[in-house]
C-alpha cells in the first residue's frame, strides 16, 4: 500500500510517501517504526501517539490497530491538531 506523510510526520520521515506492505493499521505502524526510527516519537508499538492521526484513502480517519488494509489503500499520517 501507499503511505503519505503530511506536516510533522513528513519532516520526521524525511520523505513525503513510500510503498509498504501491511495487512492492518497496527502492522503498518509497527513496520514504519522499525524501518524509520525517526518516527519513533509518533508511534507506540502499533498505535499513533494521540497527537497524530491516520486517514484511509482521504475518506475516514482510523485508529484501531486491527483496521484491515488492502494492497491498493492509501494511508495518510498527519498531525491530529488541524487548527490554524
Amino acid at each position: 500500500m501507499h503511505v503519505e506523510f503530511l506536516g510533522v510526520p513528513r519532516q520526521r520521515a524525511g520523505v513525503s510517501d513510500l510503498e509498504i506492505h501491511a495487512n492492518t493499521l497496527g502492522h503498518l505502524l509497527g513496520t514504519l517504526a522499525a524501518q524509520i526510527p525517526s518516527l519513533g516519537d509518533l508511534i507506540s508499538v502499533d498505535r499513533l501517539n494521540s497527537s497524530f492521526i491516520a486517514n484511509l484513502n482521504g475518506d475516514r480517519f482510523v485508529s484501531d490497530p486491527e483496521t484491515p488494509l488492502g494492497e491498493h489503500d492509501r494511508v495518510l499520517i498527519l498531525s491530529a491538531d488541524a487548527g490554524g
Partner: protein
Amino acid sequence: MNVPTAARGWQVTDLPHFGYHGCYLRIDVSSGFAERVPLPETVLRQFIGGSGLGVRLLLDEGAAQMDPLSPEAPLVFAFSPLVGSPLTTSAKFAVVSKSPLTGRINDSLASSGFAIAGKACGCDAIVIVGRAPELSALIIDDGDVRLEPAAEYRGATCRETEAGLKARLGAGFRVASIGPAGERAVRYATISHDGRHAGRGGSGAVLGAKNIKAIAVRGTQRADWANPRELTALSKALSKRSLGPATAKYRELGTATNLVTFNRFGALPTRNFQSGTFNEAANLSPEQLSATRSKTRESCVTCTIGCEHIYTLGGKGGVRVEYESLFALGSLCGVGDADAVLRASQRCDELGLDTISTGGTIAFAMECVERGWLSEPWLKFGDGDALLRAIELIGSRHVPGNALGNLLAEGSRRAADEIGHNSIAIAPQVKGLEIPGYEPRALQTMALGFAVGARGADHNRSGAYEVDFSDKVDRRHVTLDAVRHAIDTEDKAALMDSLIICKFLRGVLVDFHAEAAEMLRNVTGWDVSADELRETARRIVSAKRQFNLLAGWTPAEDTLPERFLNTPLPNDPEASLSRERLDALVAEYHRQRGWEPVHQ
C-alpha cells in the same frame, strides 16, 4: 486625571481576593472622565474574564441595540484571572464590542505584553465609550488616565504608531493601535499589538470611530494568587508538557503547514470557494517558503510554544506567516506567487486589516468580475499585483474616486447588496463575517459550527474541524450525532477565551476541564470544579446569543450561503451538503442547547 471609584449599581462588599482587581476602568473619551467600577466576585466567577466578561459588560452597557460606530457604543478590553500568572500562553486579552461588520457580538483576542501591562493598571477590563474631539492616544499610566493628541500618527501603520508612542512615552508602556484602515472605518479593521492583531469583526473600526489611534498602558499593580507555590509548580509542569508532540506542528512548521494538508483533503478553499484544491498550494508550504527565505521564530510573552514563524521578504522586512492569511490571500484569490501572498499579508498587518475578511472580500469581487457583475477587469484570480492593488484601495477608502475601495471596505455581504445579481449566494460569509480556511462541504461539522457561530463564520469560536479530522464522524456525510461534538468544541473555545489560554494548548491538556479548574483554583482560591466550568462555558455561549437576540438576530442567519447548499465541490462530488441536512443540524443544535425552536 486620578480615577474615582463609583458603585454604578454593583455591591462593592463582594469583591474577589485573588486573581482579580475587582473593578473595571470605564473611560468616556468624549469628556475625558474615567472611573473605576467595582466588579463583584459573583459576576467574575460566572463569566471569568476575556470574552465572557466582555460580553457580560456589553450587555450591562446596553450595547446590543447601539450602532457600533456611534460614540455611545462601548468597546471592551477584557483581561482575565490568569493574566500575569506564570501559566504558559496566559498573556492574552479580548477586545469585545458589537461588530460593525456583522451587527452581532464580536470578541477578538490578541496576545502579549499589553495584557499584562493593562491588568497591572489595576483593572480587570477597560471599557471605552464616547468620541475624542480629535485623533488621540489614550494613556493609562497606573492610576492616571489621560488623552494626548495623536495627529502626528494619522495614516501611520500599526507598527509605526506603536514604536512612535513607546518612544514618546518612555519605558514600560505597551501599546495597542489601529492602522489607516481603522481610521477610515473599514468594517474589518483590526487592533494591533506587537505585530499581533485582535483581528476579526472590525474592532479597529470601533476604536477609530472613537477617534482613538492607540491605547498605551503601564502599571505596577499585581493581583495576588491564592496558592502561589502550587501555581508555580503547575505552571512549570504545563510549560514542560507544552514542548511535547502535541505542539510540534506549531513549533516546527507553524500553522502554514495546514495548507498542504487541507489541499490533500480537498478542503482548501480556492478561488472564492469554487474548489477545494489549489494546484499551486505547494508554493505556499512552509518547506517551500523557507527554501528561499530566512525564517525566525517568535513567541508571545509567557508562551513556551512559539508558533510564530516570521519570514523575510526581500528588503521589506519580515512577515508573520499564518495559515489563515496564506489561504485567504493565496488559494482563495487563486494567487500562488509566494512573494505576492507574503507581501499582501504584510500589507494587511501594516494597514490594520483582517486578512481573512480582506482575502474573502477580494476573492468575492474577483468572482463577480469573472461573472461580469463588476466592471473591474484588472481584478482577476491569480493576479498577485491585482491583489495588492485591491488591498491598497481598501486601506485608502474615503479617498475621492476610490469607489471600489469603498465597496470592498464594507465586506462581502454589504458589497453583494450593492452589486446585486443575487451575488449574496457566492459571498463567502456567515452573518457578514468572511469564512475562514475550512471548506464547509468537505468539513461538515465545521459547516455547522460556521452556521451557528455567534460572531459569524469563525474557526476560533468553534473548533468543530477537530471533529471532522477524527474518527468521530464521516466529515462529508455528517449526521445529527455530530452536533454534540460541535457543541463541545464551541463550549471549550468559550472557556479558553475567557480564562484566557491559547487554543494551541488543546492537545496538551488531557483532561481539559479538570486542568482548567486546577489553574483557576490556584489563581483565585475558588473551589471551582470541572463541572462548574462546563456550566460556565454554556453560560458564556448563551450570553453571546442573548446579545445577538437583542441586536436583532433571526433564525435565518444560522445558515451558509447558497453556494455551499446547492453545489457539490467540483473536485469531490461526495462533498455535498444539502440545505435540508444543514437545517436539520442547526435545528438539532438549537434543541441540544435548550434554546427555543426556530423556524427556518
